[in-house]
């Protein structure tokens, strides 16, 4: 087995995902009240749900500030170690490497290239995850803060209508994060070889055989650790993969059903496909929360 993630990375992933997913569950019913009204009942009313939303917002803010500071300082003090992300990901060389890797990988997938490109510790989709999610979380924290303390922002006090623009951004990004979470789980957990859950982010370890297939360039740099390798090949992954894709198609339809209602923002009426997509999305996220807690506890034992 190889050591793939540090303690801090594992805890950051766990705290960030649990708080983020709880924020989605407690926040999306505001935007989609016609379709997700049952979530308010689940938590005992809208006041309780909104209180929980703020509690999990504080947990997310804490983890964002703590782990953000920690990872930046750690990178400055210790260097990049076995990571392939150079210069915090802001160098033209690294960006072009990631883009080229993405293009070659997709071409190989589509059968337009013979050899699959070799990747370091993080392939292009993981690099995308690492940069996109904190960016989206930052937008949510910023817009959430403006809505929480509107009188502290002069542009709101002189233009009260802009409060609702901020709310639309907050809700729109939240919807994008819902798509992101389902896609992330579909790509990294429910795929053949990982199903039902990719334990490496919970246990911090990956089998050498799997790493040689997926992160070939990283293997010589990785630290060997003890641990038992378990082969994961279940045909059930195709059923769950299909459910995820159907869910994402239903959710991709949602913006087409949205209409602008001035200061009320983007609203959706009672639509069967929208209710199905959002309902299944929220139920899936509840299952992911339970799965994450179980996997984290299992990872602690290892």
């Amino acid at each position, binding site marked *: 087995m190889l050591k793939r993630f540090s303690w801090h990375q594992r805890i950051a992933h766990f705290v960030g995902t649990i708080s983020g997913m709880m924020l989605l569950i407690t926040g999306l019913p505001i935007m989609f009240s016609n379709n997700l009204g049952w979530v308010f009942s689940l938590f005992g009313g809208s*006041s309780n749900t*909104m209180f929980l939303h*703020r*509690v999990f*917002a*504080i947990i997310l*803010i*804490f*983890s964002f*500030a*703590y782990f953000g*500071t*920690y990872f930046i*300082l*750690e990178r400055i*003090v210790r260097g990049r170690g076995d990571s392939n992300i150079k210069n915090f990901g802001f160098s033209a060389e690294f960006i072009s490497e990631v883009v080229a890797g993405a293009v070659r*990988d*997709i071409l*190989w*997938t589509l059968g337009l290239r013979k*050899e*699959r490109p070799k990747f370091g510790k993080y392939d292009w*989709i993981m690099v995308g995850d690492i940069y996109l999610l904190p960016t989206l979380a930052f937008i949510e924290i910023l817009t959430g*803060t403006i*809505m*929480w*303390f*509107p*009188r502290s922002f002069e542009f709101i*006090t*002189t233009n*009260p*209508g*802009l*409060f*609702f*623009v901020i709310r*639309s*951004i907050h809700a*729109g990004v939240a919807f*994008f994060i819902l*798509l992101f979470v389902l*896609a992330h789980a*579909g*790509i990294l957990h429910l*795929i*053949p*070889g990982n199903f039902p859950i990719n334990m490496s982010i919970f246990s911090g370890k990956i089998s050498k055989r799997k790493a040689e*297939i997926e992160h070939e360039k990283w293997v010589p740099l990785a630290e060997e650790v003890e641990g038992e390798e378990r082969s994961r090949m279940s045909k059930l992954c195709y059923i769950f*993969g299909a459910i995820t*894709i159907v869910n*994402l198609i239903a959710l*991709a339809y*949602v913006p*087409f059903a*949205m209409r*602008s209602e*001035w*200061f009320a923002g*983007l609203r959706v009426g009672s639509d069967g496909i929208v209710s199905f997509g959002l309902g299944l999305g929220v139920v899936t996220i509840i299952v992911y929360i339970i799965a994450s807690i179980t996997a984290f506890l299992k990872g602690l034992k290892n």
Partner: protein
Amino acid sequence: MRAIIAIAFIVALITMYPYISNISTASSLKGSYVFKWSEIPVEKRGTIYKSNLNFATKFNNAIKILLEIVGIFVVLLVIVEYYKYYKIHKEGVK
């Protein structure tokens, strides 16, 4: 490493302090918490309301278009990536 943990912890505590001290705020849309239209001088109110409304409508439409594009992109990405891992584990990679 302990110094890094300590600095990160202090930064996180300072960052979350204003939120914890205001967690009981019932709703930012209730009471005197949010700025009200009535607090805008009456001679400016109409103009500001109209410009804010135009801006909000344009923004709503822009977000809608972005979400439409992102939704399609995410579906295609997941299908391609899922097929990629199917291919990796079925055919093996050299």
